[in-house]
């Protein structure tokens, strides 16, 4: 599935310009992170990808077809969007019903839905919570419930809006598992996040946004080496990368292992 974005602009009814000409394309299944300052337009941009918001100018093509051709409900088959605030997405009485809702709308057969529930509830860690009311879940479980309800629809592209808010070590680990699963199953995962440790652990393609535009995009090596541009979008590299840069190590490090390796090589490099 290929998403092309051509000169996308979005103006609020009040007149403010949220997106000021975005040109990019997403393809393949290598997970993509969208980072950048608050108010850069990340969520507004993401809401265009499944048609929840429509471009004021420019166009979005999904496998060559303009997004204008169909409703959001139609695109939901191909592009799943997980809201930033789970309270905005959950509206049914049990986790199971939340999970069933999307695939039922798409006309997925009953036995298939049941199979998916088994699999998805395991993946998002809510197997024992299926009959719980979503209001009784804690904040992180709610987030996984919303992710699960979109995974249930098995879209080709899945957009996660700030999935790491309030996640602990275990929650982060689970997110990594989900992102890996999507990648291995030829699904494209696009994630909006402020958590740079999470970014470098899970993503190699990064899009940096600022003030309604894409400031730069590319591999994590490229993006996190350009600290000056990063700063423009209110982003700093993760802790380990920063230490490596401060010490002037030749290669950029993202994980502890990389850092230790690069540092010891530097020590012995005489």
């Amino acid at each position, binding site marked *: 599935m290929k998403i092309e974005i051509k000169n996308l602009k979005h103006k609020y009814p009040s007149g403010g310009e949220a997106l000021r000409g975005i040109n990019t394309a997403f393809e393949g299944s290598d997970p993509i992170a969208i980072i950048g300052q608050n108010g850069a337009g990340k969520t507004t941009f993401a809401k265009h990808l499944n048609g929840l918001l429509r471009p004021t100018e420019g166009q979005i093509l999904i496998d060559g077809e303009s997004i204008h051709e169909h409703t959001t409900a139609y695109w939901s088959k191909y592009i799943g969007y997980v809201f930033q605030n789970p309270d905005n997405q959950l509206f049914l009485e049990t986790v199971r019903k939340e999970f069933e809702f999307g695939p039922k709308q798409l006309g997925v057969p009953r036995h298939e839905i049941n199979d998916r529930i088994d699999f998805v509830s395991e993946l998002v860690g809510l197997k024992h919570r299926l009959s719980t009311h979503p209001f009784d879940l804690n904040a992180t479980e709610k987030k996984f419930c919303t992710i699960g309800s979109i995974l249930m629809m098995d879209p080709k592209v899945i957009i996660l809006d700030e999935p790491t808010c309030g*996640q602990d070590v275990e929650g982060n680990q689970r997110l990594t598992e989900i992102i890996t699963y999507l990648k291995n199953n030829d699904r494209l995962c696009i994630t909006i996040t402020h958590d740079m440790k999470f970014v470098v652990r899970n993503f190699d393609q990064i899009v940096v946004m600022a003030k309604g535009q894409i400031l730069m995009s590319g591999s994590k090596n490229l993006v996190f080496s350009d600290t000056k541009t990063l700063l423009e979008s209110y982003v700093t590299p993760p802790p380990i990368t920063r230490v490596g840069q401060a010490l002037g190590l030749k290669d950029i490090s993202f994980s502890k292992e990389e850092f230790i390796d690069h540092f010891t090589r530097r020590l012995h490099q005489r």
Partner: protein
Amino acid sequence: MTSTLIQVSHFSYRYNQESEVALKNVHLEVAAGEFVAMIGANGSGKSTLCNALVGLIPNYFVGYSEGRITVDGKDTASVSVGELSQTIGLVFQNPFNQLSYTADTVAEELAYGLGNRGVPRDEMFSKIKKIAELMQIDELLDKNPLELSGGQVQRVALASAIILEPKILVLDECTTQLDPIGSEQIMDIIKKLNESGITIVMVDHDMERVAELADKVYVLQHGSIVLGGTPEEVFCSPQLAEFSVSPPDYYEITKNVIQPGYREKDFALTESQAIALLQEVLYEDRNQEPQA
């Protein structure tokens, strides 16, 4: 001279309709002016403890409690949440929950708590102006709080608590929706508030930040405090991994590249410490080079 401002004595709590206790025999003292961080896995009781400190437990939630909590000499069970709010402020995890939903503008939102205290109108204006500059929300003052983005509401939520000038500020993961630099700015503000004498109790999952800022760190697990002390004591503890907490990345990288006993301190907990220590190692090795 330090005096105890918060005293949690053998406090246990179970929410109504829950079979397991949320807090189990928690014992904790916070001195005036201290910066305390609470860490631990989700569901370990951190937010429950926050609610208990400001008196929402037992005054607002229905449940069963044992033991007692005093804040600035007041027993939280015997005074109202409103009265306690004059001493202790709370910023919720979800910033939208901080809003009063009665204000048409951010300025009115910020004025809400002041109004309850009977602060004269002229004073409100100067306080709102000051806090808006501090939190960089000047441009939002005339906007409807319900139409702001998550990051913006987070700043407003914090401002609405700080404007009340509490002696103690309890922060339950208060920067999760901010960009990295914004989040650093907010933490700088909180650090300055602490330096000016305000006691801070902060729940956070960012261990680098906890190590940088906190005087004391408490680790919670299944509703109990299982580990507590200075950041150094806590993060160097061999037990840490059992509680689903990992030390700051700085600790692990320094610990791994520096031979034990190589120098007095073979690890670092903060960015500046780590850079200084590792630079020293590189520099010293270079000095040895000609001799080798």
